[in-house]
C-alpha cells in the first residue's frame, strides 16, 4: 500500500510536470484528478490510487504549500461529501465516469433533494412520486431545506416508486438534472431573514432511467449510505482552543470589562470548559479515525456542537445587554456562506437554533446513540410493514 513518503514524491513529480502558476486552473485540476491525486482513497481512474483515506491530508498539504489552485470545496460540499461517495459506491461504471471528474473539479456542483415538508426526521415517509414512462421517470412533489439548489447543476434525489410497498421498500434513488424545466427552485426564507436554503418543486420533471442510481426499490439503503457519509464529514477537525462561538464571547469578555458580572463569569467559564472539552473530544475522535478505530463519538460531537452553539449565542446576548436587543439586517438575501463572525450577535443566536435540526435533529441523534451505541431496544414500530399509502400522515 502507498505510504506518505511515496505520496509526497508523487505530488512533487506531478508538480514538476504541471506548474501551478503556469497552468490553467481547470486544466490543472483535471490533470490532478487524472493523476489519481484528487481523492487518493478512490480507485485508479476515478481520481485516486486506492491509498488509505487518512493520507488525503498529506496530499492536500503538499498542494496547498505550493499555492496550487484547489477545487473550491466549500462551494460543493454536498457533491464532495455525499454525492461522490454514493456514486462511487452504487453507480454504474458509466455513471462514475460521467459524474465524478466534473464533480471533483467543481465544474458541476451538487445539491441533495431528500427532505420534504412531510418527511423530515422520518425521511422514509417521503411522498415525491416517480412514475416510469418508457425510458424516463416523471417526478412530482416538493423538496425542502435544500442548500445550494439555486447554484447546483445536479441533485441526488430519492423518490417513491411503489406507494403500495412498505415505506422503506418503495423508494428509488436518482441523479436529477437541475436544469430540467420541471424543476423549480424557490428561496426559503429563514428566521434570520436570509434565504440560505430553498424549496424545490418538481412538476413533471423528467429523469432518464440511465440516471437512476442502484436498483428500483433500493433507494432507502442508498440514502442511508449517503447520510452516513454526511455524519463522517461533520465530525473530525484538529482545531485550536477558543475557535467558534466561545472565542467570540471570550474576546468580548476580555475587551469589555464593564459588561462583567459574577453570574456571567460563572457561566462563561462553564461554557469555556464545555467548549474546550468538546474540542478535545473531537480531537480524540480524529485520532481514533486515524488509528483505524472509528468511534461512534461523531453523533455526540454534533449534539455537543448544537447545544453549545445555542447556549453560547444565547449567553452572548445576555452579556451584551442593550446591544443584545438589536439586530443587524432582516432583509431577505442570499448569504455567501455562514459567516458567523461578520454578522451580529442576534444573527448568531437565531442561526444557531437550526443546529439542532439540520443534518439530523438532536432527538434523532440521541435515538441513534441509544440504539446503535448502547444497544437499547428500539421503540415499538407500527409503520414498518404497512403499505406506505395506508400510513397516518
Amino acid at each position, binding site marked *: 500500500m502507498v505510504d506518505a513518503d511515496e505520496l509526497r514524491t508523487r505530488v512533487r513529480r506531478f508538480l514538476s510536470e504541471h506548474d501551478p502558476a503556469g497552468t490553467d486552473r481547470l486544466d490543472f485540476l483535471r490533470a490532478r484528478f487524472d493523476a489519481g491525486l484528487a481523492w487518493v482513497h478512490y480507485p485508479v481512474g476515478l481520481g485516486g490510487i486506492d491509498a488509505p483515506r487518512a493520507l488525503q491530508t498529506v496530499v492536500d498539504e503538499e498542494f496547498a504549500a505550493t499555492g496550487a489552485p484547489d477545487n473550491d470545496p466549500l462551494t460543493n460540499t454536498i457533491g464532495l461529501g455525499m454525492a461522490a461517495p454514493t456514486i462511487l459506491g452504487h453507480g454504474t461504471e458509466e455513471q462514475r465516469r460521467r459524474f465524478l471528474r466534473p464533480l471533483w473539479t467543481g465544474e458541476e456542483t451538487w445539491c441533495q433533494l431528500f*427532505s420534504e*415538508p412531510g*418527511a*423530515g*426526521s*422520518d425521511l422514509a*415517509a417521503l411522498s415525491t412520486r416517480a412514475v416510469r414512462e418508457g425510458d424516463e421517470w416523471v417526478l412530482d412533489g416538493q423538496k*425542502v*431545506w435544500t442548500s445550494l439548489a439555486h447554484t447546483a447543476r445536479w441533485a441526488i434525489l430519492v423518490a417513491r416508486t411503489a406507494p403500495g410497498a412498505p415505506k422503506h421498500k418503495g423508494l428509488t434513488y436518482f441523479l436529477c438534472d437541475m436544469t430540467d424545466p420541471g424543476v423549480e427552485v424557490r428561496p*426559503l*426564507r*429563514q*428566521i434570520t*431573514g436570509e434565504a440560505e436554503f430553498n424549496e424545490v418543486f418538481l412538476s413533471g420533471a423528467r429523469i432518464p432511467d440511465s440516471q437512476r442510481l442502484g436498483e428500483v426499490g433500493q433507494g432507502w439503503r442508498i440514502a442511508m449510505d449517503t447520510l452516513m457519509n454526511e455524519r463522517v464529514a461533520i465530525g473530525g477537525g484538529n482545531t485550536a482552543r477558543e475557535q467558534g462561538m466561545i472565542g467570540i464571547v471570550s474576546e468580548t469578555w476580555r475587551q469589555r470589562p464593564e459588561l462583567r*458580572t*459574577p*453570574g*456571567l463569569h460563572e457561566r462563561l467559564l462553564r461554557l469555556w470548559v464545555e467548549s474546550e472539552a468538546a474540542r478535545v473530544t473531537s480531537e480524540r475522535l480524529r485520532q481514533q479515525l486515524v488509528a483505524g478505530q472509528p468511534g461512534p463519538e461523531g453523533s455526540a460531537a454534533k449534539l455537543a456542537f448544537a447545544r453549545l452553539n*445555542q447556549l453560547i449565542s*444565547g449567553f452572548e*446576548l*445576555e452579556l451584551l*445587554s*442593550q446591544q*443584545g*436587543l*438589536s*439586530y*443587524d*439586517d*432582516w432583509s*431577505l438575501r442570499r448569504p455567501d456562506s455562514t459567516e458567523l463572525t461578520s454578522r451580529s450577535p*442576534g444573527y448568531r*443566536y*437565531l442561526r444557531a*437554533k*437550526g443546529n*439542532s*435540526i439540520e443534518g439530523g*435533529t*438532536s*432527538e434523532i441523534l*440521541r435515538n441513534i446513540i441509544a440504539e446503535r451505541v448502547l444497544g437499547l431496544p428500539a*421503540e415499538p*414500530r*407500527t*409503520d414498518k410493514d*404497512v403499505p406506505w399509502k395506508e*400510513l*397516518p*400522515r
Partner: protein
Amino acid sequence: MSSPNLLYGEVEQELRDSVRSLLRDRCDWTAVLARCESEHPYDRQLWSTLATDLGVTGLLVPEELGGAGAGPRELAVLAEELGSSVAPVPLLGSAVMATSALLACSEASVASEAVTTLATGSAVGTVAVPLTTAPDDPFPESVRAQDATLSGTVPTVVDLEVADKAVVPAIGEDGPGLYLLDSSAPGVTRTPITPLDLTRRIGTLELDRVPAPRVATGPRAERALHHALTTAAGVLASEQVGLAQHCLDSTVDYVRTRYQFGRAVGSFQAVKHRLADLWAGISTARAVARDAADALTGSSEEAGISVAVAQSYCCDLVVLAAEEHLQLHGGIGMTWEHPAHLYLGRAKSSQLTLGTAERHRNTIATLGALPAP
C-alpha cells in the same frame, strides 16, 4: 402577612375574554408578521380600539383621570393576552411605564393631564430609560437639565417611535428630576434601532436643549421612577406567562397532528416529558406572576421581593418556552413564514428587559439577607 390572592377573579376573566376576542379578530400572527416589515410596525388602530372600545389602556388610572380605575392585577391580565399574541402595541412604554411614572407624580397637574391622554389612548407615552434598566439601578445620569431644558442621549427607549410623550429622568442643578417631554418639540431626535424583537421597537432619543416641564424632583422623582420600573417588571412577568403559554399550546397542537414514523410526534416520550416539564414551569411562572401583580397593589416593600422572584423566574422560563416551541416545530419553525421567530424575538429580548435574572437575584440577595461573598 395575609395570603396574596393568586387566582383570577371574575372581572379579570371577563377582561381576558374581551381582549382575547378582539385579538383573535384583529391581531392574528399573519397580520403581525406582515406589519413588522412595513412602514408602520405598530398597530395604532388596535391600540385605539383597546382604548375606546374596551377601555383597557388606562387600567392603572383612576376613573377621575379618565382611566378604568382598576390596578396592576387587571393590567397583568391584559399583558398576558397581548403577550400571547405578540401584539405590536405600546403596552409597556405607554400603559405601564409612562402611566405608572406620571401617576406617581400626579401632584403636578401637567402629569395628571398627560396621564389622561395616555389612558384614553389619545396619546402614547414612554419613559426615556434604556430598556435594560432594572428597578434598583441608580437614577440615570445621561440627560442633564439646565435652564429648564434637557440635553443628552438615551439609547434603547421602548416604544419611542410612536411615543407622543416621554417621561425623562434627568439630573438638574438640584439633583434628580422627572421631566415631561413632548416628542414633537424642536431639538428632539428619535432614531429607530433595528430590533431583535420585531414586535416591540426601541430607539435612541437625542435631546438638544429641549424645553420640558418638571413633574417631580429629588427623592420623589427617584421613588416615582423606581415605582414605574418595579410595576413594569412585575407586569412584564405576566406578559411572559402569556407568551410562554401560547408557545406551549401551539407546540402541543403541532405535535398532536404532526406524524413521523407513523405516530404523532407528541406520542414520543422524550417529547412528552419535555412538554410536561415546560407545563410545570409555566404553572410556576403563572403563580409567581400573579403573586407579583397582587403585591403591586400593596406596599413597595412587599412588591420588591415578589417582583424580583417573578422576573428572575419568568424571564428565563419564557426563553425556554420560545426555544422549545421552535425546536419542537422542527424545520417548519425555522422558516420566516411561521410565527415562531416572532415569539422567540420577543422572549429573548424580554429576558434582557428591565433587568436580567441575575440582576433580580441580586435584589433578592439584599432583601432576603443572603449576602454575596
